[in-house]
């Protein structure tokens, strides 16, 4: 199965969840997504998603200067982002349940 296609649909929710856990800058979010098991996630698509969520008002952002290297841009979640995450959590739960019971009726029935 082409997991990159699946990833596209849930990337918003995954990024929101990671940032809700703790503020993070671009690559930091990528790293946490990967360590959570989303190995195929592409750096640039995460950065773009962060920007889109920020532009949509779901995230806040602030810049942290660095003595040695270039500065970092951190993202944090706000109330609107949390509300969005809640909705997406529910939608994912119901969607996953539907697809699971479709693909594996026995497991779906067991749940």
């Amino acid at each position, binding site marked *: 199965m082409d997991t990159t296609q699946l990833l596209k649909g849930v*990337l918003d929710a995954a990024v929101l969840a990671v940032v809700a856990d*703790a503020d*993070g*800058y*671009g*690559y*930091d979010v*990528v*790293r946490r997504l990967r360590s959570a098991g989303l190995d195929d996630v*592409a*750096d*640039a*698509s*995460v*950065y*773009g*998603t962060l*920007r*889109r969520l*920020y*532009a949509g008002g779901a995230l806040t952002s602030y*810049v942290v200067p*660095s003595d*040695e*290297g*270039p*500065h*970092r*841009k951190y993202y944090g979640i706000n109330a609107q982002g949390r509300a969005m995450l809640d909705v997406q959590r529910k939608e994912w739960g119901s969607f996953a349940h539907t697809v699971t019971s479709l693909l594996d009726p026995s497991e779906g029935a067991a749940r």
Partner: protein
Amino acid sequence: MSTTAPLPTPAAALRTFVDDYAAAVRRELDDLPAETVDDLTDGLEADLLDALSDTPVGFFRPDDGPRPGADLTDTVVAPPAGGAAASGAPGAGAAPSSDVPFTPAVLVRRFGSPPAYAAELRSSAGLAPRVAAQGAATRQGIAAAWAETRAGWAQRWRELRAAPGWKPVFEFLEVLRPVWWVGRAWVLATALLWFQESPVGLAPSSGAGWLLLVAAVVCSVQWGRGVWRFEPRLRWVGRALAVAAVVLLLPTTATALAGSSSGSGGPVTVYHDANRSNGVWVDGREAENLYVYGPDGKLVDGARVYDDTGKPVRALDDAQGIEGGGLVVSNDDGTEQWLALPSLDRAGRQAWNAYPVERVPLAQDEWGGTQYDDDGAPVLQPGAAPTAPVAPFDEVSPLTSRAALPEAQALPGDGTTPSPAPSDGASSAPSSDASPTPKPTTPTPPPAK
């Protein structure tokens, strides 16, 4: 979270590569507003550096990557606390080794080409793909400004409609909308007819015109009701027609009103100059010159023409003003002017009825009008000589005989040739008192005036 560790010396080169890569990505985004580019790429260098430091050294093994011209011999991997770079690289040795070349190509291997990276940033950020090549920024700028202006007007329009004082007005106008459906159809149909036939009235003057008007009304009303629609790719046609109807509303209405008040298709008012009593009209146009051809079909130069009362026939009227012994005439569209010069008879009198009348081209002023000198005399074109205008025919068919008298009207006992004066007319024979010589059949010329 981790912070970037102080970079060892070769890291300066790595920084350069990263900066170059980030700059290349930003160039790929330069069609977007600067603010958006900042949002998208702020902190990109830090992210790239971090990502590189997280990348297993094995990723850069020479086996499967491009590397010629390796001038940097040291991999710069500055793992953050607990970084997996050195330890997690299978078969790479414990530490970054000198056999791993570090070139800008490594960034491309790790992150993809800058255009691809920028494209992914765009698509995941929900932005449109890059518009092709040059002028994109300008076009987008114009499009954005236009969209902003439109949005601004739309907003003002909404506010106006929502304003309590205007609400009844708009409700009233809303009811009149079907009137506009018919109105715009009339405007467009009338404008079309205007192209076809110069005088247009409030109603078409032809059956085809009516057909067009009715068809236009049906289409317009059906479109207005939303029953008929334009295909999506033809929507611009609808918009163009709507704009055209608004733009043409005043001109067509004014023309149609003027046309109907003077009676479209009715008699045309022609203003006659009361001061002018001369001139020769042929087929609705005033002749500028006359050409007389003899019975042999050859052009007669200097032929003098009189009417049935012996008056000289003058195509040019001195009521137009004789200037400097001649008469200024112009062609039909007024783009050329001449000084017409009359022939003179033995007594030195001007014979304006001698044809063809010769003329001299006149110099024009900068507006195309006749140029006059200080004495008020028209200025001739330099080197111009009087010439007769080119005759319409070099020669016409010679005459062989006269038409025979129709048999039915043959007058018994009258063997003369037909004459314009009725033989039995008592009072209407003009020759009796107007001309001292009997009939134009005589070769003697009538007296000059």
